[in-house]
């Protein structure tokens, strides 16, 4: 990978990804499997070969047209990819927490609002606010990851992002989730760590 030119690298990656994608989605995979265990009927083979050939041609055409859209070679890409893979389990755990959080707030009896009498919330667990904060993140990919992570973690949803200064507008359903972003900044540090930016 070290001596490979940028174009060859993206062509190769695109080819491999598209082929795996096709193999996973195509019913022909079953036929190919049958051929190797010797169960495929002889009359079917020309048909399978025709479909296989057209698939290879299609993959080749798509690769030539769109390999530069699919992937760009970046510095230390492998390290970023590994760190992203380590980040995903934490994110999945956060999604679970977020759902339990919303479910709790939705079902909590104190958040009942009597419809017509212009109801008040009493001491229910909802106290929405819009917060703003700036981050040190600058690249597109890290900002997208951060915005999606905010939306998926408990109690907060991204409203707007201003890329040049890394500023986020976030709607928070109560005080605590917003403070976690403003004061703690653990998520921002995690995303900066993944994309090798200054936290």
């Amino acid at each position: 990978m070290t001596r490979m030119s940028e174009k060859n690298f993206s062509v190769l990656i695109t080819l491999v990804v598209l082929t795996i994608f096709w193999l996973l989605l195509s019913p022909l995979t079953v036929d190919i499997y049958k051929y190797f265990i010797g169960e495929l009927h002889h009359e079917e083979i020309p048909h399978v070969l025709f479909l296989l050939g057209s698939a290879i041609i299609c993959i080749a055409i798509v690769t030539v047209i769109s390999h530069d859209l699919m992937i760009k070679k970046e510095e230390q890409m492998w390290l970023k990819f590994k760190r992203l893979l380590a980040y995903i389990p934490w994110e999945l755990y956060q999604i679970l927490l977020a759902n339990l959080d919303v479910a709790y707030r939705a079902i909590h009896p104190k958040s009942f609002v009597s419809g017509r009498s212009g109801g008040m919330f009493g001491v229910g667990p909802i106290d929405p606010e819009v917060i703003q904060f700036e981050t040190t993140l600058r690249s597109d990919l890290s900002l997208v990851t951060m915005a999606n992570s905010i939306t998926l973690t408990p109690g907060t949803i991204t409203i707007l992002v201003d890329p040049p200064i890394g500023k986020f507008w976030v709607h928070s359903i109560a005080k605590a989730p917003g403070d976690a972003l403003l004061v703690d900044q653990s998520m921002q540090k995690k995303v900066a760590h993944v994309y090798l930016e200054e936290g």
Partner: protein
Amino acid sequence: MFGLDLIVNGVVVALFVIGLFFMFSGAIGFLRFPDFYTRLHATGKCDTLGEILIIVGLIIYDGLSPLSAKLLFLSFFMLLANPAGTHAMMKAAYVTGVRPWKRGEARQ
């Protein structure tokens, strides 16, 4: 009857029930929360996990097959598309000036 089959079916049913619980609480939140933004909190989050849990249940039920691969892709794209859709609606409302509900105000 007893054995692996029973365990697999039990896990699948458990995943379905948990997924349905999250979908259900999302629907309750959608009806009870006071304004546009808080309602999006309910639908945007609970739907993601509820749908993914149900899909994971289907994957386990079907075992290792081409259908499972397709379902796995479906859950992956849902994980990407759901926050993006929620964010798009949030932004549209905020830019056109829908005022966020504050504690103590009447329900919208």
